[in-house]
């Protein structure tokens, strides 16, 4: 059970993982239309202004694509193992499935209290649930990277930390640029 929740890639990868991952992205983006949860960074989510489906979908796709590119490049530096790009695409897409949980958070009444009273206990509760979903995603991305790129030891830890920070910064910057320059 624990493996299926935190490391499903032991059993699922490649095209199957890609299809499941893309389905998760579509579901999360669809829920966000009603809940207003934005995924404006590879690892995080926030409740914000209501937008169209295209905006939510684009955010999710950018988060996924930036993470895949960064980790693929990092993998070239530390591993010579022959890997399939479809496994990276698939496992990293499937690693985003906790975003379905995050996208539901906008429905809870405490998010409205949050805007009215930012210092409330409800804010803490919301932040805690968001943190759980984010941690879950980070653990999944770690396992996706470890399995699809076959990296171990110090190289795995170092490149993963660099990858997480770079993905977050680049995806946030790119999404912000899109908000400013494209009419969505």
């Amino acid at each position, binding site marked *: 059970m624990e493996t299926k929740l935190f490391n499903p*890639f*032991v*059993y*699922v*990868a*490649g095209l199957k*993982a890609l299809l499941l991952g893309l389905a998760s992205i579509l579901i999360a983006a669809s829920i966000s239309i009603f809940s207003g949860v934005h995924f404006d960074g590879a690892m995080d989510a926030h409740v914000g202004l209501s937008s169209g489906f295209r905006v939510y979908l684009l955010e999710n796709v950018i988060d996924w694509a930036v993470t895949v590119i960064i980790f693929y490049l990092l993998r070239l530096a530390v591993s010579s*193992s*022959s*890997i*399939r790009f479809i*496994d990276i695409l698939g*496992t990293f897409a499937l690693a985003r499935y906790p975003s379905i949980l995050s996208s539901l958070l906008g429905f809870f009444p405490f998010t409205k209290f949050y805007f009215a009273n930012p210092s409330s206990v409800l804010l803490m509760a919301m932040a805690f649930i968001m943190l759980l979903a984010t941690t879950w995603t980070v653990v999944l991305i770690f396992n996706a990277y470890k*399995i*699809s790129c*076959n990296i171990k030891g110090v190289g795995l830890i170092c490149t993963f930390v660099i990858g997480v920070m770079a993905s977050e910064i680049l995806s946030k910057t790119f999404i912000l640029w899109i908000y400013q320059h494209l009419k969505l």
Partner: protein
Amino acid sequence: MKKSLPLICPSCNTKLNVKSLSCGNCETIVSGNFDLPLLSNLNNDEQKFIIDFVKCSGSLKEMASKLGFSYPTVRNMLDDIIAKIKTTEKELKHSENGNKTI
């Protein structure tokens, strides 16, 4: 009870060699000093993996469906075995060179 082949000397931790082999039919005994085959340095699970891999004609996809694991998981298992074989080869070469100098 299935006995496993001892590979390391319990006294000095050096790799063991084969001293004698016997025929199960006529009880002839052949004595000498023979190296153990490279694959015997792998554990039972790893040897089974290699046998299954050969039976699957070297198809990782087929192995993955047979074992119920994903393709990259099986490929990583194979990579680990390859790394272990390479290390063992180096050790054997090293010990051969050591014997020659003596």
